[in-house]
């Protein structure tokens, strides 16, 4: 797992042996069981999560029903952003499978950055990329019809269709489970 982390950061910027070592040793890695709630909507959390293995689902409660709006898989970041301004989490984030996540928070990161300033550069690039990805996710979500949303998910995360329950998939693309069945049949018939 630690090698995986070093590899990921190296892709962003080549690391020195010292930097690779500090990342390897300071990484906090935790196992979560399927169903574990990482952060609740309205909760104040300073943790950031990097998915090494597994699947995290993002949702809100709307009149008691779960409205799913995103999924995070391997090498994606789940960021609850309230290091500044003390905002509570806007979402629920829950593990949909047994997952292995790397945890981070700003305080522990700052200590490392003061020793290794280049790691701050990497952190900035990561936040920029994650934000950009997130904005794109939102834009797609707003512009797509349910069928388009399904097709986009199929294209970007083909395995996700197998990994999540139908009713969550339906919630994500914005239709009732029956409609999801119809969409899938329709797509299968297309040449």
């Amino acid at each position: 797992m630690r090698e995986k982390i070093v590899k990921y950061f190296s892709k962003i910027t080549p690391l020195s042996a010292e930097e690779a070592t500090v990342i390897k040793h300071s990484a906090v890695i935790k196992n979560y069981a399927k169903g574990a709630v990482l952060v609740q909507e309205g909760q104040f959390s300073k943790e950031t999560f990097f998915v090494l293995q597994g699947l995290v689902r993002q949702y809100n409660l709307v009149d008691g029903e779960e409205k799913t709006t995103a999924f995070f898989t391997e090498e994606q970041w789940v960021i609850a952003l309230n290091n500044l301004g003390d905002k509570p989490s806007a979402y629920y984030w829950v593990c949909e499978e047994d997952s292995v996540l790397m945890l981070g928070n700003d305080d522990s990161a700052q200590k490392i950055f003061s020793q290794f300033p280049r790691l701050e550069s990497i952190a900035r690039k990561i936040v920029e990329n994650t934000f950009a990805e997130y904005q794109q996710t939102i834009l797609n979500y707003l512009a797509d019809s349910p069928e388009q949303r399904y097709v986009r998910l199929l294209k970007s995360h083909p395995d996700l269709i197998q990994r999540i329950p139908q009713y969550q998939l339906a919630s994500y693309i914005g239709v009732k489970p029956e409609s999801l069945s119809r969409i899938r049949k329709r797509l299968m018939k297309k040449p």
Partner: protein
Amino acid sequence: MRQKLINYFAEISSLSHDELAEVMEQLDFKSFEKGAVLIHEGQVHNKCYYIIEGLVRQYSLEDGVEKSVGFFAEYQTVMSIPSITEQKPSKYYFVCLEPVTCIVGDPTEEQEMYAKYPKLETLTRSMIEQDFGQTQEDFANFVTSSPEKRYLNLLQNRPDLLQRVPQHQLASYLGITPESLSRIRKRIAKK
């Protein structure tokens, strides 16, 4: 106005007023008139705009119909994500709804600045996280709310938008017709 910006940056970073004044000298400040188009759909645009004063609208044009998907005000960044991250054309127009003063950034030139002022990198990361956090909140509100509730959210969180954005564009952003928006406003005014 520059002083206001320096004060704000001094609050959210560890840069001193003097350091910030020095940094300001090297930043590219630009002003745009109301109606100016910052980024055109179909254009690969590799600059970003950090808004200091003014309001920018993001919209798509399909079959002659404008769909508003975002509004960017003070301390928010305007950029075409596909352009910056993948050198692909923008899918949206970004137009100034008011006269805009902004800092023009070029991601490819940033590295030099950061090498010179490491604390600037921390500041940039803070700014992105602020923006990211706001975006998360906005999207969560959007997803969990009926159009009327979305309007109330705007009233509460971004009341300035209601003054500054024409009704039909607001309606498009909320995903409703201008007539529905009128009805919602009348209903709320009566309460």
